[in-house]
């Protein structure tokens, strides 16, 4: 702890040296969070200084603070991974002229975050490289900002006619191949326009957020602190526990609530069980995309007992409803512990068998080696997280960098690969799967006795901030909470791992073959979503060809049958 405070003091000093009086205030809320209030005109210099200290950008949070201090606040969240410290750069922006300098040129990974802040709160990033709409629907009226406090959560603007996304111009001579807005390997409805020359992808354009449901608004307008975990765990259809854990931890951190040790261990165990079933699910989907359905059938068979286990522990196979502020609602009975051990033994035995079978499969290697390469340098710049980052040799893992739950006592092994291709991401996930099983065993062996819930007797104080990161199977999820009065957060911000990871896609599919695009997207592990179609438009003739989902899958599989020969 002392070292964290020491690092915080050093960071504070370094920023103060760089921007002088531009640093208006510095404070430390939770011990691992340094909050620096900087003048808006010094934001870029402060960011440069943090980058020099090897800080990693997480997300921006726009807050309409007009009822509190008559301004908007834009918070830039950074993480100093090795030093276990979060740094928040906070700018107060005048409501008369809500503009702030864009940092997207310094941090390419801030591209979406700044656009989202503009769409939701109405603070425009000046000098942004791609200032198109991101979050809001194309027919949403101009000048209406849903996350402003005076915007009612149930307001429905009238529908507009004749609107469309603003497309990016393809390079000269290239054709456009749209994928989506509904496509099976994407987590949510999202619309990719691939610019192709023949079979080769030379660029792409993205439009997404069709599934945006405004849950952050609900969290700060109608729900209360203890109702949000049930909404949070529904953010992801596979790894819900990470979101309810991250939210509860953020509130606990802000309010200074000490969670009982036993509850922290059970959270760890649940999170690792979730990783086990999620990675098995991903392995199956990756196989399915490549036309290797044996892997799909077998890994999904292997993961089913883990789902049943979750049902027995929590009362439901997916929406566990276990987390609450202060700990857990359910204890782990001793009778279930033996079952958990039995199931993970079986899953481990079978996972090892599958791993040993697929590592020698030359067809699989041909389809994944050197496909969708993400360089370590670009991964750092776009702030990629999770297995895609570790597969590109970026040694980050929220469980080690910002230990939470019981990871301080049962730490994970850091699984990294250097190649950065799809095969490297497969290896990282398989290794993590086996390591998760080890952690479940170790956690159960060391499970302390005692309570699982700390009763919160006092009101949660206002205007405190809490940042919590949780290493989801897909990468690091970030939850930010600023506490408010009336028993609910003033602002709740969620950043799921796919948010930064999808931003790395353009580089990963550059100069790839069209048939490699599905597995490259799939290798980022966005959750599997809906059934759809893909259509190709030849720019010069405007002729149109509609590919069905089957045809595109068939293209991908045909390449597998050719043994990956292009």
């Amino acid at each position, binding site marked *: 702890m002392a070292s964290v405070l020491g690092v915080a003091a050093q960071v504070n000093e370094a920023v103060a040296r760089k921007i002088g009086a531009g640093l208006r205030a510095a404070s430390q809320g939770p011990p691992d969070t340094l909050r620096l209030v900087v003048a808006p005109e010094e934001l870029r210099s402060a960011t440069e200084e943090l980058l020099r200290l090897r800080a990693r950008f997480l997300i921006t949070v726009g807050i309409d603070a007009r009822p509190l201090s008559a301004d908007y606040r834009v918070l830039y969240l950074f993480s100093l991974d090795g030093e276990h410290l979060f740094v928040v750069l906070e700018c107060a922006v005048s409501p008369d002229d809500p503009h702030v300098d864009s940092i997207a040129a310094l941090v390419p990974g801030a591209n979406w975050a700044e656009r989202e802040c503009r769409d939701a709160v109405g603070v425009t990033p000046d000098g942004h490289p791609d200032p198109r709409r991101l979050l809001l629907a194309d027919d949403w009226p101009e000048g209406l900002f849903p996350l402003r406090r005076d915007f009612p959560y149930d307001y429905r603007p009238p529908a507009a006619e004749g609107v469309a996304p603003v497309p990016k111009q393809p390079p000269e001579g290239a054709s456009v191949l749209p994928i989506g807005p509904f496509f099976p390997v994407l987590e949510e409805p999202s619309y990719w326009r691939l610019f192709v020359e023949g079979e080769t992808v030379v660029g792409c354009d993205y439009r997404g957020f069709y599934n945006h449901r405004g849950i952050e608004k609900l969290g700060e307008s109608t*729900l*209360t*602190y*203890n*109702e*949000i975990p*049930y*909404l949070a765990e*529904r953010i992801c259809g596979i790894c819900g526990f990470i979101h309810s854990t991250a939210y509860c931890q953020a509130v606990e951190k802000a309010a200074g609530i000490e969670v009982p040790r036993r509850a922290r261990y059970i959270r760890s165990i649940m999170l690792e069980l979730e990783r086990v079933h999620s990675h098995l699910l991903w392995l199956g989907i990756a196989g399915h995309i490549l036309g290797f359905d*044996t892997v799909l*059938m*077998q890994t999904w*068979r292997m993961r*089913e007992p883990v789902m*049943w286990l979750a*049902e*027995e522990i929590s*009362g*439901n196979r997916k*929406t566990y*409803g276990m987390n*609450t*502020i*202060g700990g857990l*609602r*359910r*204890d782990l009975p001793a009778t279930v512990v033996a079952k958990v051990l039995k199931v993970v033994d079986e899953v481990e035995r*079978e996972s090892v*068998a*599958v791993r*040993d*079978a*697929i*590592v*020698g*499969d*030359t*067809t699989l290697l041909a389809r994944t080696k050197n496909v969708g390469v993400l360089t370590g340098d670009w991964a750092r710049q776009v702030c990629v997280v999770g297995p895609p980052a570790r597969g590109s040799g970026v040694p980050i893992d929220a469980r080690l960098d910002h230990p939470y739950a019981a990871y301080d006592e049962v730490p994970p092994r850091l699984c990294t690969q250097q190649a950065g291709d799809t095969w490297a991401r497969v290896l990282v996930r398989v290794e993590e799967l086996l390591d998760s099983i080890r952690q479940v065993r170790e956690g159960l062996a060391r499970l302390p006795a005692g309570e*699982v*819930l700390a*009763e*919160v*007797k*006092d*009101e*949660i104080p206002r205007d405190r901030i809490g940042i919590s990161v949780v290493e989801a199977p897909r990468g690091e999820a970030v939850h930010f909470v600023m506490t408010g009065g*009336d*028993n609910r957060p003033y602002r709740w911000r969620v950043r799921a791992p796919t948010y930064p990871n999808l931003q790395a896609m353009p580089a990963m599919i550059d100069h790839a073959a069209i048939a490699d695009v599905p597995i490259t997207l799939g290798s980022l592990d966005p959750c599997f979503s809906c059934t759809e179609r893909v259509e190709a438009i030849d720019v010069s003739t405007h002729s149109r060809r509609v590919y069905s989902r089957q045809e595109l899958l068939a293209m991908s599989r045909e390449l597998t049958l050719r043994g990956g020969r292009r």
Partner: protein
Amino acid sequence: MLTAKLREALICFKAGRVTLPYPFAPHDPAPGFRGKITLDPDRCFGCGGCANVCPAGVIQVRDAGQLLRVLEFQWRRCTYCGRCEEVCPEQAITMSQQFETATDRGDDMVMRLEVFMGPCQRCGRCYVPPTPLDRMDRTGFRTGSGGRS
């Protein structure tokens, strides 16, 4: 290559039959599963704590005159979190094991409970504080029995 394929084939053969015969044979959920809520009208004394904590807003409470309190459960919205069961001071709500709840009639998804109330002549309430009602009123966190009681 060939060994890889043989290993894969072996995994498939070992798996055997996996599909369960459900619905031709019953498939009971694990103990502790949170299914459809059930109400015990004799136990409910109308405190409305369940309505206070329900994240999905399933439960509406309204008073008809001075003597009747109506609790309406629009449980098509129910997310089966079990918070109502947890806070109910009289165990009037419990989560059953029932999961086969599909229906083509909207009325099936509404439960209505009428509780006869006898308000105190002096204060308008029925109980000496601290009552379970005071616990419901507290903001922040409310403790519970742990869902499994």
